[in-house]
C-alpha cells in the first residue's frame, strides 16, 4: 500500500552538470511546491543552504495558448487571453485589443478608453496587493497579509463582476472599445472602493513596511543591476526597482495615459525590498490615476461602431502591440494572412522574460531567499508557460 517513491526522488540530475563536490545537495523545488506560485520547478544545487546553481524548468502549465489561437477567430482568442495572467485578465485583454487595433487600424472611443484605464488600474491595484500578500506568505507570515490583500481584492472582484459578469475571467475588452457600459451605480461603488483603498495601504504599511524581519530578509537580497535588467529584457516594476526609468504608459503614450498626472517610482538598489516597495508605491500612483479618470470620464459610445463582432478579417500584415501590464511589458504579436483567424499569434510574456535573471539573482543566496526572490519577480505560470 505504501508508496515506493520518495517525495523528492524525481530530480532530473541530467539537467545539472556534476560539480564534482560530494557535499552538494541537489534539490528539485517544484513543480508542486507551496511557494512556486503554481507549477514551476527549480533544480537547485545547494551547498549547505547556499545556492550554487539554479535551473528553472518550465512547461508544466504549457497550455498551447498560441497554437489554439491560430485556429480561433480573433474575437475567440479574447477569452483565452484572460487565462494568460489569470490574476489580471483585463490588462491581458487590453494588450491583445491594442495589437488587433494596430493590425486593423481601429480607433477607440473616448469613454471606452477611460473605462479601459479604470478597469486596467483596478487590475493593477489588485495584482500588486495580491503579490505583496503572496510575497509575505512566502516569507512565512501565516497568511495574514495575504488575507488582508484578498479582502481588498474581493471588493475589486465585486466591481469586476458588476461590470463584466465574471470575477476573474472578465473578457471585457473588444476591438475598438469595451463590451458593456457601466451599469447604474457602478461608478459610485468603484469610487467608494478606490477611496477606501488607501486605508488598506496604510494598514499594510503599519503591518509590514517598517518590519525589521521583513527588511532584514529582503534588503540586499537578490540584487539586479540596471545594465543586466535592460539587457535581459526585464520590464515592469522589476526593472523600475533596478532604476530603469521605463514605463510603457509614459513611453508609448498609449490609450489616454497622457492625460493623467502620475509619477513612476524608481528603486536604487534593485533588491527584493525595492521590488516590494515599488509595487507598494505604484498602488498609490494607480489610485491617483483612478481618481482622475473617474472624475473626468465623459459620456459617449463605448465601442467603435465600425467593428464587427463576427467575420472580422484584418488585412494581411503584422503588428506588435504592447502595454504596461502589472507584471511588465505584455505584448502581442499578430500576423494576419487575411483570414478569420491569425496566422501567427504570439504573446510576449513579461513573467517568462523576467525569469531570465532568476539564476543570476539566486546564486550565492540562501535557499530561503530563493522563494522570496521568485516571489518578488511576480510570475504567474499561466503567462510563463502559456
Amino acid at each position, binding site marked *: 500500500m505504501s*508508496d515506493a517513491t520518495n517525495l523528492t526522488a524525481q530530480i532530473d540530475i541530467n539537467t545539472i552538470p556534476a560539480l564534482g563536490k560530494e557535499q552538494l545537495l541537489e534539490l528539485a523545488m517544484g513543480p508542486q511546491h507551496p511557494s512556486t506560485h503554481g507549477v514551476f520547478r527549480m533544480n537547485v544545487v545547494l551547498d549547505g543552504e547556499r545556492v550554487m546553481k539554479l535551473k528553472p524548468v518550465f512547461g508544466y502549465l504549457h497550455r498551447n495558448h498560441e497554437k489554439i489561437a491560430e485556429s480561433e477567430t480573433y474575437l475567440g482568442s479574447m477569452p483565452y487571453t484572460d487565462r494568460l495572467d489569470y490574476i489580471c485578465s483585463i490588462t491581458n485583454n487590453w494588450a491583445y485589443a491594442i495589437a488587433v487595433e494596430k493590425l486593423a487600424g481601429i480607433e477607440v472611443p473616448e469613454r471606452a478608453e477611460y473605462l479601459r484605464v479604470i478597469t486596467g488600474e483596478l487590475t493593477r491595484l489588485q495584482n500588486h496587493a495580491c503579490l505583496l500578500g503572496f510575497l509575505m506568505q512566502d*516569507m512565512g507570515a501565516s497568511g*495574514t497579509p495575504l488575507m488582508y490583500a484578498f479582502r481588498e481584492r474581493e471588493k475589486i472582484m465585486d466591481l469586476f463582476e458588476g461590470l463584466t459578469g465574471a470575477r476573474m475571467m472578465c473578457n471585457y475588452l473588444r476591438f475598438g472599445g469595451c463590451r458593456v457600459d457601466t451599469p447604474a451605480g457602478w461608478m459610485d461603488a468603484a469610487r467608494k472602493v478606490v477611496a477606501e483603498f488607501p486605508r488598506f495601504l496604510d494598514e499594510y504599511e503599519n503591518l509590514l513596511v517598517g518590519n525589521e524581519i521583513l527588511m532584514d530578509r529582503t534588503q540586499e537580497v537578490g540584487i539586479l543591476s540596471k545594465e543586466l535588467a535592460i539587457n535581459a529584457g526585464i520590464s515592469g516594476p522589476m526593472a523600475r526597482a533596478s532604476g530603469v526609468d521605463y514605463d510603457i504608459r509614459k513611453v508609448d503614450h498609449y490609450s489616454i495615459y497622457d492625460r493623467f498626472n502620475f509619477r513612476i517610482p524608481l528603486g536604487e538598489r534593485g533588491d527584493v525590498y525595492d521590488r516590494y516597495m515599488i509595487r507598494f508605491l505604484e498602488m498609490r500612483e494607480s489610485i491617483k490615476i483612478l481618481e482622475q479618470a473617474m472624475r473626468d470620464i465623459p459620456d459617449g459610445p463605448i465601442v467603435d461602431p465600425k467593428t464587427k463582432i463576427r467575420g472580422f478579417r484584418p488585412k494581411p500584415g503584422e503588428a506588435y502591440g504592447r502595454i504596461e501590464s502589472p507584471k511588465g511589458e505584455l505584448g502581442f504579436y499578430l500576423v494576419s494572412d487575411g483570414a478569420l483567424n491569425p496566422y501567427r499569434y504570439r504573446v510576449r510574456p513579461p513573467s517568462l522574460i523576467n525569469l531570465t535573471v532568476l539564476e543570476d539573482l539566486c546564486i550565492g543566496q540562501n535557499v530561503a531567499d530563493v522563494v522570496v526572490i521568485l516571489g518578488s519577480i511576480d510570475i504567474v505560470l499561466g503567462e510563463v508557460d502559456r
Partner: protein
Amino acid sequence: MNLKLDQLDQIFVILNNWLLGYLPPVVRPLCSSILAIALILVTFALLFAITTVLERKGLGRIQNRFGPNRVGPCGFLQPIADGIKSLTKEDIVPNPADHVVHFLAPVLLVAAAFMAYAVLPIGRNMILVDMNAGVLYFFAIGSLMELAVFMAGWSSRSKYSLLGAMRAIAQMISYEVPLVLASIVVIMQSGSLSTVSIVNMQATYTGIWPHWFVFTPWGFAGFALFMIAATAESNRSPFDLPEGESEIIAGYYTEYSGFKFALFFLGEYIGMFATSAMAITLFLGGWSAPFSFLTWIPSYFWFFAKLLTIILTFIWVRGTLPRLRMDQLMNLAWEFMLPMTLLNLLTAGVWHFMPAGALRWLICGAMVVVPCILLSRGLKQRKKFQVRKYRFSE
C-alpha cells in the same frame, strides 16, 4: 470560607490522598505517580486540543474571518474530528526510510515532551517529582526532543526532511545556549535548581505586589530572552524554519502521515507548553497569584491562566510576523541573545550585591537597556537595513 478555598486549592492533592488511602501502603508512591501522570497526560492533551481550536479561531479573527465554527458547537469538536481522522488514516512509511527510527522519532518526541512535566509545579504542592535538580532535568529532557527531530529528518530519507532536520538541529542547539543562560539568573538569585523552591521564593508579597523575578530588570530581560529562545526552541513563528512550509514543504516531518504526524503535532505543542510553563515557573511566579488579595483563587488556575496568556501571545505573534532566515536566526542567537544573556548574568550579580533602592534599579536597568540598544543597533548597522526613500520620475 478560607478553609474551603484552601481545600479547593488542594483538591487534587486531597483526592489523590483519599484514593490512595484505599490501597496498601507499599504501592502508594507508585500509584500516586501513575495517577498524577495520567492526570497530566489528560490535562495537557486536552489543552493541546483546545489550543489548536483557539489558534485556528484566533488566527481567523486576526485575518477577518471566523475560523472553524461548524464541527460541533462553535467548532470546538474540530480537534476530535481531526484526531479520529488521523487515527484512521493510512500510515505510509517510504520504502527507502529507516523503518525503526522512522517509527521511534514521533514516539520519542511525545515521550520527551511529556517527561518534562515531571518537574513543573502546576499548583501548590502539585508536582510530580520535586527534584532538587529540576531545572537541569528539564533542559536535559529538552535536548532529547532535538534528538527526536533529527531522527525524524534523517530516517525519512527525503531531502526536504533532511534540510528541515539540519535546520532544526542548528536552531535548537543555538538557542539552547541562551535559553539555559537566561534561566541561570534565576538560579543565581534563588540559589536552587528545584522548581518548587524557585516558585516558593516568588510566591511572597510586598504589599499587594508579588516577588516575581520578572519585576526586576534582570528578570525582565531574562524573561524576554527566555521567551525568544523558547519560541525558537519550540519552532514557533517567526522561528518556524525547520518546518518552513514555503521553503522546505513540511521540514522534518514531510514524510510522516496519519497518526505519526499527529504525534509530531502533539509533541510540538506539548513541548511548547512545557517551555512556556518553565518560563512561568522561572519568571512569572509559577502558580502564585499576581496580587496578594487574589491568593484565594486556586493556584492551578493561575498557572493555567498564565500558560494560556503565553499561548495566546504565541498565536498573536504567529499571526503577524514573517519568518526569519537561517543566517539571521543564527546571528540573532550568537550576536544578540548570547551577549545579552551573559550581560544579564552580570546584571543579576550586581543586583544581588547592591543595597535595595532606586540606585540599584537605575544601574541595573541601565545595564540591561544600554547593551540592548547598542547590540541591536550594531546588528542593524552591520546589515545596513533601513526604511528607504524613493525617487519618482514624472
